[in-house]
């Protein structure tokens, strides 16, 4: 039984860490939803696009090489240089900000005052468009991220827990790194929104578009800033998930992991995204641990596996019944 307790604790800690990885994706959704009321379906593709662009720039890949070669009959794939990691990150952030500007200029500007469902549909279109552009720009090959991100079992935790409990816990260094980055992001975003002029303007827009406009806040400028920040967070999420699996087009599917986090944490709360992610992470890992264990099988007569995907949604749905706005979301009050 002591062994099972240790295994369960290990599963719970890993769940916490995995939940933080989910939160990284959910954070981008929250930012955009807070500022513009748009559920941005393209957030997962933004993570993919950001990571693709970073690897492409860093490795000196020629963007749109396929099209260029087809038109001019050339066979160029690489510039023949590599870009240092820091410069590549800065350039990629620049691309994501440019993307934010383009989205505002050619999409959002034309959809002001439209129903939320129309804005949502527009982001679905945006997701497919970006996926296609990403493929044309950088190709569909799986790419390895060349950043010094620690990965693998954390030896210190392994040996410490072994000394203490007689069983070494497995915690992935990548997950620890993601947790540190997430904490940093939440603190930075909170300080930005509480104490900077732009942050206050952002909050004003989030509270009431009309009132914000009436005091001279530029809605369009705020949208560019918010989409730019969401693009940066998407880049971070893409890099962290891409470090695990390589940068590939299935990265866009990480959106599926963010949805229950948002339902649970609330669509408008930055801390909610983190806490929601942790609850989902711990819940799904502990549940999987319990229902797949032999003692559960002995007791119930059956075991279950691969429960994580559906359990996350079931957990979120249970929360929805009692708190439709999520744990930290704004309470919706409809006045007649």
């Amino acid at each position, binding site marked *: 039984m002591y062994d099972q307790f240790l295994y369960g604790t290990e599963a719970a800690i890993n769940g916490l860490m995995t939940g933080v990885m989910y939160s990284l994706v959910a954070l981008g959704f929250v930012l955009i939803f807070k500022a513009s009321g748009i559920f941005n379906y393209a957030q997962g593709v933004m993570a993919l696009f950001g990571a693709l662009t970073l690897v492409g720039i860093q490795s000196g890949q020629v963007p749109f090489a396929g099209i260029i070669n087809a038109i001019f009959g050339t066979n160029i794939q690489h510039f023949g240089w590599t870009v240092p990691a820091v410069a590549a990150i800065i350039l990629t952030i620049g691309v994501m900000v440019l993307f934010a500007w383009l989205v505002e200029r050619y999409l959002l500007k034309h959809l002001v005052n439209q129903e939320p469902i129309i804005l949502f549909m527009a982001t679905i279109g945006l997701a497919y468009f970006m996926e296609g552009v990403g493929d044309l720009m950088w190709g569909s090959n799986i790419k390895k991220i060349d950043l010094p991100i620690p*990965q693998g079992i954390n030896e210190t935790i392994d040996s410490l827990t072994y000394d203490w409990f007689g069983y070494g816990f497995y915690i992935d260094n990548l997950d620890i790194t993601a947790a540190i980055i997430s904490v940093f992001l939440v603190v930075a975003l909170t300080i930005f929104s509480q104490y900077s002029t732009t942050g206050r303007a952002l909050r004003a827009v989030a509270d009431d578009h009309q009132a914000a406009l009436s005091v001279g806040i530029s809605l369009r400028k705020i949208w560019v800033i918010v989409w730019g920040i969401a693009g940066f967070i998407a880049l971070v999420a893409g890099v962290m998930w891409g470090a*695990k699996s390589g940068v590939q087009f299935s*990265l866009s599917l990480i959106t599926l992991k963010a949805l229950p986090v948002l339902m649970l944490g609330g669509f408008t709360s930055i801390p909610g995204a983190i806490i929601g992610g942790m609850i989902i992470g711990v819940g799904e890992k502990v549940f999987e641990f319990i229902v797949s264990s032999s003692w559960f099988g002995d007791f119930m007569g059956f075991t279950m596996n691969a429960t994580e995907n559906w359990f996350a949604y079931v957990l979120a749905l249970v929360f929805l019944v009692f708190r439709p706005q999520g744990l930290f979301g704004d309470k919706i009050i409809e006045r007649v």
Partner: protein
Amino acid sequence: MKLTKLAAYAVAGAMLASPVMAELVFPSLSYRTGPYAANGTPVADGFADYMTLLNERDGGIGGVMTNVIECETGYSTEKGVECYEATKGEGALIYEPLSTGITYQLIPKTTADDIPMLTTGYGRTSAADGNVFSHTFNFPANYWTGASVGINYLLSENGGSLEGKKIALLYHNSAYGKEPIRTLEALAEKHGFDLTLLPVDHPGQEQKSQWLQIRRERPDYVLMWGWGVMNQVAIQEASNIRFDMNNFIGIWWSGSENDVAPAGDAADGYKALTFHAVGTDFPMFDDMQKYVVDAGLASGTGEHVGTVLYNRGMYGAMLAAEAVKVAQEMHGTADITASMMRDGLENLVISDETMAAIGLQGFAPNFTVTCQNHGGPGLGAVQQWDAASQSWSLITDFIAPDMDVIQPLIDADSAAYAAENNIEPQCN
């Protein structure tokens, strides 16, 4: 003026009315977009490039040019069926749908339309029973033979006994991933090893629970039936928990360069099954370079030539082309129909002579297709990844599966399908 116009119309009309040049149509149900694009692209390139090679070097097959009609499925079963319906009227000779899901949907359709289907290394395993599945072929290997080859390899590594060993199957929680379970359960009973089943939900980006369980239970070997991102994450997680890569063996859809690249040096020693050779060390590839890549006619950039999945696509095209030759000879015409193509597939003989003539001697095993056996011998080999040289190499000869275990499973499954669909045995 009117006369000039009339003359122009007459010439145009005559051109349109002239007989259409015969061609051999091969629809390619590819997926160059979506989450599995990285795998679908080299397979489609290999298939298209081999057909281009035949056109450029040999003037087609039997003097008739080949025409590959590519249709994008995005690895979606619905789109795959749409592609089938959209292309079957173009004179399609054969379908290779590159997806187990699409295969299941097309089995009744292709049978009704009298168009053969070749599902090399995937699809419905019991389609190996040609008595029931008249239009579906899955030579030279299928999932059940793959599972058995994997176990036979482990038997050879353990002095012929797996008694008391613990083997875990990490599988994609889908029809594809579940395919080897029945075979492995039967083999576990026969050889006395303990089988643990570890499903991973689609797409497989998160596998922490499964690898924590592997770390706790310490199986001697892990077999993997994965696809797409599941493979890369599994190999990374295995290295994270310091699982010995020499004891980690994937099916052939978990053994491409794409699967090991993200883990870098940590993937060194990882093994996978295969039913064909790797690399470009065969004379055919010299022709491929000369007539297709250097001539600027390659389907892609040419960078995939010789990679595992490119070779698999090329091998699929080669098998189809050889079946065309058999059909042309059987029916005495170069311009064959889909029905004739089916006959060609059912009478296909791949021998040393055949492979040597193509320039691929030793690339894949010899086999003979019959009316009863659409599945071939099921031979498979083991390949291993060397991270230093960034290459796969075969570390075994082609190993035979345990047909004593597999054949009864195939017979039972195909008999159930026949009963369900009122199918009379076609072979006498």
